[in-house]
């Protein structure tokens, strides 16, 4: 009989047709899956069935919204650690070619990439036949104003406020992603053979005096290298740590901000800002989410009411419709 089958295949049509489509298939199995009888939940979307969803959304969203709103508004009080940001507007850090213009291997301390940066860095790859470290447009355009904050006391001489330079970048960035070139020598030695980015005042190994915050692992540099999502962005600049529980971190008073202006923003019609803020559990101050939650919750609640009315009005007619079936 096997012969029969072969011959049949041969004659009937070369390629096997449907899976299981030939006459060989025996009687189909009576399983729920094969007979498409799997137990199933079959929601029907009508006003009556959907309106609880709307009410539930409303009931959940409005309280959340209120909670967020309150939290966000509370951020104003300057208690706890205060974060000092600089903000740039109209700066397109998300520009496609700008975003690409970096060499992560170089930043990771790869010696070969240090001396021979990726092509992506063009035209900020080499300067005067020396490789640029760190190469690329992002590094080249690093924000290099310095901000200093002074408290103008009653005695009218400014008290400088300690601005912490470290732990403003992600821990992983600082410890894993960004690495100085390996070696025991001084940082300058390790960066030997490279040149500074065109726009920089100092080479990369002179970003900071603290060896743990110098070179590629300089946290200001790391923060800058994390390109912002939107053209108006802020970046963490310094931390103002709270000294004691008794005093507010920044007591009320007149403050004096000293800016060493290096960074031109006219070229892109940008603006610079300095922001002092605390953060709550949900980050910096942003009333949007709270308002959005309240709004969406209310809308949902309202739609729920509309559906309730509709359901009440039209339930009868839909029932009669069924009878006519």
């Amino acid at each position, binding site marked *: 009989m096997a012969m*029969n089958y*072969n011959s049949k295949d*041969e*004659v009937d*049509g070369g*390629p*096997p047709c*449907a*899976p299981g*489509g030939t006459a060989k*298939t025996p*009687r189909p*199995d009576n399983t729920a899956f*094969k007979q498409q009888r*799997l*137990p199933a939940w*079959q*929601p*029907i979307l*009508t*006003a009556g069935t959907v309106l609880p969803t709307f009410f539930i*959304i409303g009931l959940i*969203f409005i309280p*959340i919204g209120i909670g967020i709103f309150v939290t966000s508004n509370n951020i104003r009080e300057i208690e706890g650690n205060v974060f000092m940001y600089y903000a740039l507007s109209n*700066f*397109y*850090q998300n*520009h496609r070619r700008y975003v*690409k213009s970096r060499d*992560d291997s170089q930043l990771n301390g*790869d010696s070969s990439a240090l001396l021979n940066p990726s092509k*992506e860095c063009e*035209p900020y790859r080499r300067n005067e036949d020396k490789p640029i470290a760190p190469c690329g*447009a992002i590094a080249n*355009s690093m924000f290099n104003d310095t901000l200093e904050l002074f408290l103008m006391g009653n005695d009218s001489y400014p008290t400088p406020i300690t601005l912490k330079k470290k732990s403003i970048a*992600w821990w*992983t960035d600082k410890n894993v*992603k960004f690495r100085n070139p390996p070696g025991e020598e001084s940082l300058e030695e390790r960066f030997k053979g490279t040149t500074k980015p065109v*726009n920089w005042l100092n080479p990369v190994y002179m970003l900071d005096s603290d060896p743990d915050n110098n070179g590629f692992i300089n946290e200001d540099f790391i923060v800058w290298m994390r390109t912002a*999502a*939107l*053209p108006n*962005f802020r970046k963490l600049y310094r931390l103002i740590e709270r000294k004691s529980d008794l005093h507010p971190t920044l007591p009320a008073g007149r403050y004096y901000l000293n800016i060493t202006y290096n960074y031109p923003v*006219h*070229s*892109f019609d940008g603006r610079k800002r300095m922001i002092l803020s605390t953060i709550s*559990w*949900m*980050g*910096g101050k*942003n009333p949007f989410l709270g308002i*959005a939650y309240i709004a*969406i919750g209310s*809308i949902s609640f309202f739609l729920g009411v509309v*559906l309730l009315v*509709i359901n009440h009005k*039209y339930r009868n007619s*839909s029932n009669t419709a*069924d009878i*006519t079936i």
Partner: protein
Amino acid sequence: MEREPAAAEEPGPPGRRRRRRRRTRTVRSNLLPPPGAEDPAAGAAKGERRRRVCAQHLADNRLKTTKYTLLSFLPKNLFEQFHRLANVYFVFIALLNFVPAVNAFQPGLALAPVLFILAVTAFKDLWEDYSRHRSDHEINHLGCLVFSREENKYVNRFWKEIRVGDFVRLRCNEIIPADILLLSSSDPDGLCHIETANLDGETNLKRRQVVRGFSGLVSEFNPLTFTSVIECEKPNNDLTRFRGCIIHDNGKKAGLYKENLLLRGCTIRNTDAVVGIVIYAGHETKALLNNSGPRYKRSQLERQMNCDVLWCVLLLICMSLFSAVGHGLWVRQYQDKRSLFDVPESDGSALSPVTAAVYSFLTMIIVLQVLIPISLYVSIEIVKVCQVYFINQDMELYDEETDSQLQCRALNITEDLGQIQYIFSDKTGTLTENKMVFRRCTVSGIEYSHDANAQRLARYQEADSEEEEVVPRGGLVSQRGSIGSHQSIRMMHRTQSTKSHRRTGSRAEAKRASMLSRHTAFSSPMEKDITPDPKLLEKVSECDRCLAVARHQEHPLAHLSPELSDVFDFFIALTICNTVVVTSPDQPRQKVRVRFELKSPVKTIEDFLRRFTPSRLTSGCSSIGNLATNKSNHKSGSNFLSNLSSNSTLLRLEDKLGQSAPAIASNGYSSQAGNWAPEPTREQEPELKKEELELRYEAESPDEAALVYAAKAYNCALVDRLHDQVSVELPHLGRLTFELLHTLGFDSIRKRMSVVIRHPITDEINVYTKGADSVVMDLLLPCSSDDARGRHQKKIRSKTQNFLNMYAVEGLRTLCIAKRVLSEEEYACWLQSHLEAESSLDNREELLFQSAIRLETNLHLLGATGIEDRLQEGVPETIAKLRQAGLQIWVLTGDKQETAINIARACKLLDHEEEVITLNAESQEACAALLDQCLHYVQSRGLHSTPEKTEGKMSVGFSPLCPTPASTASNPSPSLVIDGRSLAYALEKNLEDKFLFLAKQCQSVLCCRSTPLQKSMVVKLVRSKLKAMTLAIGDGANDVSMIQVADVGVGILGQEGMQAVMASDFAVPRFRYLERLLIVHGHWCYSRLANMVLYFFYKNTMFVGLLFWFQFYCGFSASAMIDQWYLIFFNLLFSSLPQLVTGVLDKDVPAHVLLTKPQLYRSGQNMEEYRPQTFWLNMVDAAFQSLVCFFIPYLAYYNSDVDLFTWGTLITAIALFTFLLHLGIETRTWTWLNWITCGFSIILFFTVALIYNASCAACYPPSNPYWTVQTLLRDPVFYLTCLIAPVTALLPRLFFKALQGSLFPTPLQLGRQSARKCPKRLNIPKETFAQGRLEGDLRTDHSVGRTISPSASLSRDRVSQDCTSQAAWHTQQAACSPEASEEPSMVDNSVPLRDDTVLEGLSAQSPGSSTWGAAVPEGCPEESKVKSTSAGRVAPLSSLFNLPNFSSINWISSLSLVSGLGNGQAGRGVPVQAPSGRAGLKGTDHGLLLVAPSRGRS
């Protein structure tokens, strides 16, 4: 293995070129030295080599169906894949990525999805090719015996080693390895039987003949002596044709025909061994040339989808252009300022705005490529494969009887099943079972109504329904008169046995039965057990007796009255005028061999007979002959003959009855019992015999088998057929052997077949012709009206014609049987010309045709038969459902108009309430005029019905669910009946539009007498002009063209072979499975796929929207905030699975609701799920959702220190959640698979993200996403945004869905709701069907007792439209004829439906079409009145259009024309106007009944 000398086709190199251009092939034996070799010794080596070279261009028998080799696979497969435009597009995009200036992703990464898709397809192709290779290998290595010169014997070889010119020896049941010319057979007649099931699915045996000139060889054929040259056609794929000639050494030529050729793939049966020479091998065999690859069709949905893909491309280009312009402007804005973030070119120069714009444009195309869904095509293919799998697995589509199930042969048009608008159906074998059952016959002008037979058939039908009790039936039957008693008992017996078989029959048993019936087609008990009409049986046995006595006298037939002689000839003709092969059941394929017996004493007759025999006749012919011998045979214990005896079935029954009811048995067979009283020996082994004795008949067409079985029921049994003789067994005469001089086979032009025999009793040469009445009636010997005999003949003919018309009206297939006695001179004269024709080489067919026509003239009419082709189970219900589903059903048949109309009525295609417009035109002009008139009429009707329609529309939404009968009953649209000739006119260019317009208005269209070409033309016309989705269903070769032309072709795995199935996209076991296939699976497939495609578009647009909105915030620089990995794999990995599961498993409405409310099918026809506006609405929603999903994170992180890719990951996550929620709203059924895949998608996304973001600190530039997700997951804002954004995005959709579901629910939604509210009520199958219920009620009424009021039973007669009542009603008409009205009491009792039979003149057979009320008039006077009025009205019309003078046709067309054209209300007016009290009562009653359902619903 040593090599056989290679085949030699063309003799020498010089001649080769010339010969190859010729249209013939020359084949020589491989065993001979090549003709070019001058002397064998010197040229041996050279010749050998050359022969091999020669053989190169001849295909060997190696089968290679694979497409690729190991080396060619990659290039060839890729080349094929790039035929798909989409693949080219995606590769282009991926390659674009390699251009640094514009690249958006890492080039290698961008290639990944394309490569993935290509790899998946390539793998699939590879796997398919491999399995093909494996099966090829298996077939190539089958063994067979090939003659070897070296060993001088047949040696075993593989199939692949066979070459053209080899000699092959095949044994019984072996498969033929190549196309072989039959040279020798173990059969003494040089015959060989083959089964072509593998080739065309026909299970009956076909006979092949040894080449003329070789059949005479006494000794075994020796290949070494074969020196002839064969010239034949070049390989071609025509299975039914083979021509050539064989040239012997002595220069003699002999023709070769298809009867000499054994085709590859067939199986040798009934023959011990055959030898032949290979003519075509391997891929040149006819079987393989016929093997075309799988079909590729593109579904309508896919076409629409492709159109929308183009829209997407346009959208993509627009977005990119917009972006490019924006970027150009943006660059220009910052150009002079040299802003810090504006990266100059590598040479330090600033990018010009135009260059930047161009770059941006290209990059945007890469970034937004997701808009063109790369995975869409793959997903659709996966979903379709799954759909096909589920359709194949559906138990409800499995036919237990035939152990077959639906086969999807085309994989890519499943969703078309849900959108069909027109069904074109064949009739025979599609609507009907193609199981021909002998119903009644007329012999020499006397009608034998075979009432008992009709009852038996009715009983089978009831047995099918398995509802009735056996006992009351038996009681009922036994009330009948004594004449029918034995039959009724027998019948009861049978009914019981069938019943018990059906009841107790386990699956295995049913399977066994089906296996048996598969081995021998046309052998169900229903077809075989024919209950003879007692009167006719009496006459037959009288003939038999008389002849037995008179056979040795001078003119034996002269002792019979002309009528009896006709009866005798009639049955002889039924028995032998065919090509039926006799086999025995235990070895289904072994021909019954009784030759030894034929070599019995009566040698003299044989010699006598052989005088004129042109062909060889080695052994015996006439049988023992007289009763005494017969009996002695029985007594001697060799029960061989008795085994073969025709009455074995009767004997069996006799035995059984002998045990159960001996008294009745002896009573019943009093007239015959004495002659074949059971021998004592038989009593002891009845069981054994039952298994062995029965003969099986294998016929090429079911009609033939039916007639042979019918003759057998009259004890006139075909027991043996050899190519030159036929043996018939009669109870008294014993075995009569007719020398078969010629068989002129059936062809569709002649529409008849004939056999020329020498009658053993009279020694005359007789021609028996069997054919369509229309043809045979014209060929009759013209009889003068002068003498009494001629008048009598004329009378007989007109009577027969009347009966024929009646049969046709009943829906029976009619055949006329005629006879001609040839004088020896006439025969000799004809024979000469015939032999010339036969041996002619050129236009042999033509000459044979002419020769046949010469022979078949001056016939003497014997009688006619009516064969019923029963409707398949469930056909009326299926048709009703399909019509409810809004499908227009056209029946295209080759049958007669009356037969077709009646079948159409029986299957509810034509309603009795409906008006029937009949188009019978004799000329183009008449056709045009008729069309115009019909159109005018239909339009005027349309005006009347418009108010109702608008009313229907006003009841919003609910109206479609109201059953259509309610709306149509008040004003049903008419039906159109058109015959083949008029159809030909109507299909002319200038008329086709009118015809289509008319046909569109009609509820159903019936095309009779249409040719296969017309069928396909009609389908093509509807398809192209009406732009409608068409489905063609058929079972035979004549439907193939129609099946191929239609959008969806469905073949029926029927009795007529596999050709239709081969050409089809879907093959169903029975017509009724079409209902579930279309209404359930078609709907599901369509709705699933439509929703999935829409979802795909939504998903991609929404995703791309996110990227596009971002461009406004990145200077249109084609930057993407979403990591390239997510961007590329999002569609492929994270969001693909849930939609696939939904696309495969989602059920918008449960199956039982779809079946009970076929109207829901209309949603697919109207493309409700996937329309252009749905598409655009979908796109708008996608745009809105992407806005929400973009701006909520935007605002939430406005002016924050979030970095690009953290924010992008957040958006990706939001998008994922939104997609899943959206899918959740769209998913109608949530199985655990849906939940799991949704969960899996989310988990997969985060797992991949976490792993990816932790894997490498400095990799994946430019995004280097190290620890991004990890940081993000610590941010509460992430969760808050992920909650609010998807909810906000989907709130409107959910709200509008709910609103729509409450305010404007679609029928589908209502269906779902009702399914939910009362699932149980709807689960009851069948009963919900309104008409079915009505019928059921009435049926119970009927079974309660016989006290039904006349009106009630009549109304049942009217309302119930199943075929039995139809048939019964027609029998009523038959009862009007004086001959048939002899047994009124029996008729009354046996057919309960007709207890108040209305006698009716035959002249007034009412069609009951439009004027159903008039169809059942009270008695003849009124009837004639009705008739006369109608005739009066019709007169001008018929004269105008030159309607055929043929009474019944005239009548049908005229009546319907009158009701159709003259007065639209006439049809419905008549019943109310019926004058006499009773009729009036009935009429109103009837009217009420008709109105009731519509009222109940409206």
